[in-house]
């Protein structure tokens, strides 16, 4: 029933857009034309041209996500467990986090060129802080009895790190997977849009240069689809990784 309503609503919106564009009420110069947009997408996939760009955007996303997560976990554990270092670095971290990092895109383009590396760099700066703060929180919120219990069971300092702090921190990282993967994607696309030679963001940038609104919208739709697929992938990974956590829906009833 809900699905029917949703389909109906989508059809209504698309229909209104189409009628508006046909009648000239919505200028196709600014709003595009749904049929033409659809044609662009079909052609992209038919000729296979889009795959190269999509692959690059997704590779940038995954690299930014992986590097940001790795460094975030490492940095979070390190500072979480050495309060003194943390006290020293605190203002620097706050400043770096407060900085609107999208501004760095042109600088990264200068440092790393127009290729994949500068896109990964921007995504990295976005992902790193999300993961870093989650790990800090995870380390701080390890229940003292669990920690003391592990110590009484004979855990060495290294074993505490591996078997108590790391799992506790990772549970926080996993619970923020949706946000960090999303940020990696945003970083990749924005960096492409601000200067690149390939990727879906590049396609959009090109089309804008030629006032080709239909292609711009087609690019946006492909990106949205890609983001949804990534998000679904995260949901699958999440349910595998967090079996040990009580689920909100399990707590409600059953």
């Amino acid at each position, binding site marked *: 029933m809900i699905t029917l309503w949703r389909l109906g609503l989508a059809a209504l919106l698309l229909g209104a857009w189409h009628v508006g564009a046909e009648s000239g009420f919505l200028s196709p110069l600014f709003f595009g034309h749904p049929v033409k947009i659809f044609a662009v997408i079909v052609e992209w996939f038919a000729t296979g041209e889009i795959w190269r760009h999509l692959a690059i955007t997704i590779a940038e996303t995954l690299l930014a996500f992986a590097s940001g997560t790795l460094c975030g976990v490492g940095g979070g554990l390190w500072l979480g467990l050495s309060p003194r270092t943390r006290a020293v670095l605190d203002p620097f971290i706050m400043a770096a986090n407060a900085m609107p990092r999208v501004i760095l895109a042109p600088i990264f383009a200068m440092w790393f060129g127009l290729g994949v590396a500068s896109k990964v760099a921007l995504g990295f700066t976005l992902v790193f802080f999300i993961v870093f703060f989650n790990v800090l929180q995870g380390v701080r919120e390890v*229940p003292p*009895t*669990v920690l*003391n*219990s*592990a*110590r*009484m*069971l*004979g*855990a*060495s300092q290294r*074993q505490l790190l591996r*078997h*108590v702090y790391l*799992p*506790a921190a990772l*549970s926080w990282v996993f619970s923020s997977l949706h946000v960090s993967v999303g940020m990696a994607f945003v970083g990749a696309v924005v960096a492409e849009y601000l200067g690149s030679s390939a990727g879906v963001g590049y396609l959009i940038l090109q089309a804008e240069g030629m006032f080709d609104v239909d292609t711009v919208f087609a690019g946006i739709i492909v990106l949205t689809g890609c983001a949804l697929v990534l998000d679904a992938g995260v949901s699958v990974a999440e349910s595998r990784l967090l*079996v*040990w*956590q*009580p689920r909100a829906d399990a707590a409600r009833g059953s």
Partner: protein
Amino acid sequence: MAALAFEDVTVRFGAATVVGGASFSVGAGEFVSVVGPTGCGKSTLLNLAAGLLAPSSGRVLVDGVTLAGINRRAGYLFQGESLMPWRSARDNVAAGPEFAGMSRGAARAAAETWLGRVGLAGHGEKYPHQMSGGMRKRAQLAQTLVLDPPVLLMDEPFSALDVQTRQLMENELLSIWQADRKSVLFITHDLEEAISLSDRVIVLSAGPATRPLAEFAIDLPRPRDVAEIRLTAEFRAVEERIWEVLRGEVLKAYRQGEAA
């Protein structure tokens, strides 16, 4: 020589003196219970014995040696939730042996054996949030006992269990203790439990600055069945004598609670 000895131990948290000059000991192979009103400092005493907390003054001796750092001879059954939530029941029990360097396979086999002994056979795959409070308590017990520690520190281990399970576990504990004579420091607020299990019962004064007020030797025959022994006249007589002392402290603690 005492397996565990407190010598004039004081603990202060900021301005508050929680333990005030406590001296007592647990002999090798002895089962000692500590009873006292709620909040008087029982868990604090166990943390001292475990080496998780250092005394503000005085000292704790393990086999005659002053304790500094973690008490490696002791297994600790915590009052609160202490299982690692990211490990299944079996892997929680296997944790101690793994930390000690045992192979994963051997550690898991040992864990399965102990899960069976505490009545959790077949529940090894469950994570802590999938178990009841009583099951988690039993998993904690298995987690501690699998390491076979010569000293056992137990903080109200059975208070979350229903009466039947509780008596089963108490008898199981007694048979484990009977078999290899661990030294046990057992904390409870249940006087009947203390008497039925112990060689000696120590009554703590109400806080602040708690310390042992009186000690009672329990000369009831062993081996005991915790349910049957409660019905004997000797048991009732001892209980009455101890309650005489304890009641005053409980009332004192209760009035303090009301005043606060």
